[in-house]
């Protein structure tokens, strides 16, 4: 069983710039998704403070009862995190692939303002294709 429930992209100041919800029951309204994104940004930073060893770069995986949260932080500080079913494999490589799509379709878009919400059709299209093909490969449907 492997399914992605939602994907968030946060800019380096903690603001939500992209949110995609694939789940059915867990839908959140816009305000809540903004709050959740900012909360995650802060929790990520606090977890670095509590490290017993030097060189902590923040939470990479959070495991809860009903979902797993995988987080990838790029070099400039943009965070990509995905909420999925517990035990879904290959989420790290999916996140890195989404980061590639982000650099290709969003950052290289001359009309896109950096740190602003993402409104690029090609990015949405390719993202849906990536998630769909992932789903087909993992679930066989």
């Amino acid at each position, binding site marked *: 069983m492997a399914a992605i429930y939602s994907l968030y992209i946060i800019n380096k100041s903690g603001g939500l710039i992209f949110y995609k919800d694939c789940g059915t029951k867990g839908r959140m309204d816009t305000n809540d998704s903004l709050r959740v994104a900012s909360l995650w940004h802060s929790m990520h930073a606090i*977890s670095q403070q509590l490290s017993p*060893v030097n060189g902590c770069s923040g939470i990479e995986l*959070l495991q809860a009862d009903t979902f797993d949260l995988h987080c990838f932080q790029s070099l400039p500080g943009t965070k990509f995190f995905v909420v999925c079913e517990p035990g879904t494999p290959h989420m790290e490589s999916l996140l890195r692939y989404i980061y590639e799509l982000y650099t290709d379709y969003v950052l290289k878009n001359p009309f896109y303002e950096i740190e602003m919400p993402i409104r690029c059709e090609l990015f949405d299209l390719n993202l849906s294709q990536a998630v769909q093909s992932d789903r087909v490969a993992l679930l066989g449907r």
Partner: protein
Amino acid sequence: MQFFGGSEINPSPQVPTASGNNAHMMYVFNRNGVCLLYKEWNRLLHTLNPQQDHKLMFGLLFSLKSLTAKMDPVNADKGNLGVPQLPGQGCSFHSFRTNTYKLSFMETPSGIKIILVTHPKTGDLRESLKYIYGLYVEYVVKNPIYNPGFPIKSELFNTALDQYVRSIS
């Protein structure tokens, strides 16, 4: 690869110390946020003084619980973000992992939170935390001299805990 916010590149996993302990540290909190126990076996970096460190840890867990309850994709009825959750209410996380440590968490129905910080390759420690709670019940709760709500000062508990944690791989 050096990430934003990191100052040192630290690729090697934590080597167990001479005492053989694989865990870095452990916290036990009660439902009011009082730190009942803090044990440190192998901690190289102390960012904050102990009081602030305990408060930060409790605050982080409190907020993470609130976050996971809200983000729960399965439960349809969720409270508002920021509303304090009762123990056992809503979806709760049981561990998170960073590149330098793994934090395992367990909350009992009475609000006792047990936190174990180990190296990142550790497996699922939920059973171990349940066993530690069993030790807490035997050596602390059943101790007639123990004052609930105050830090634990039981030698037997400390020894049993040290022995058990050493055996966790």
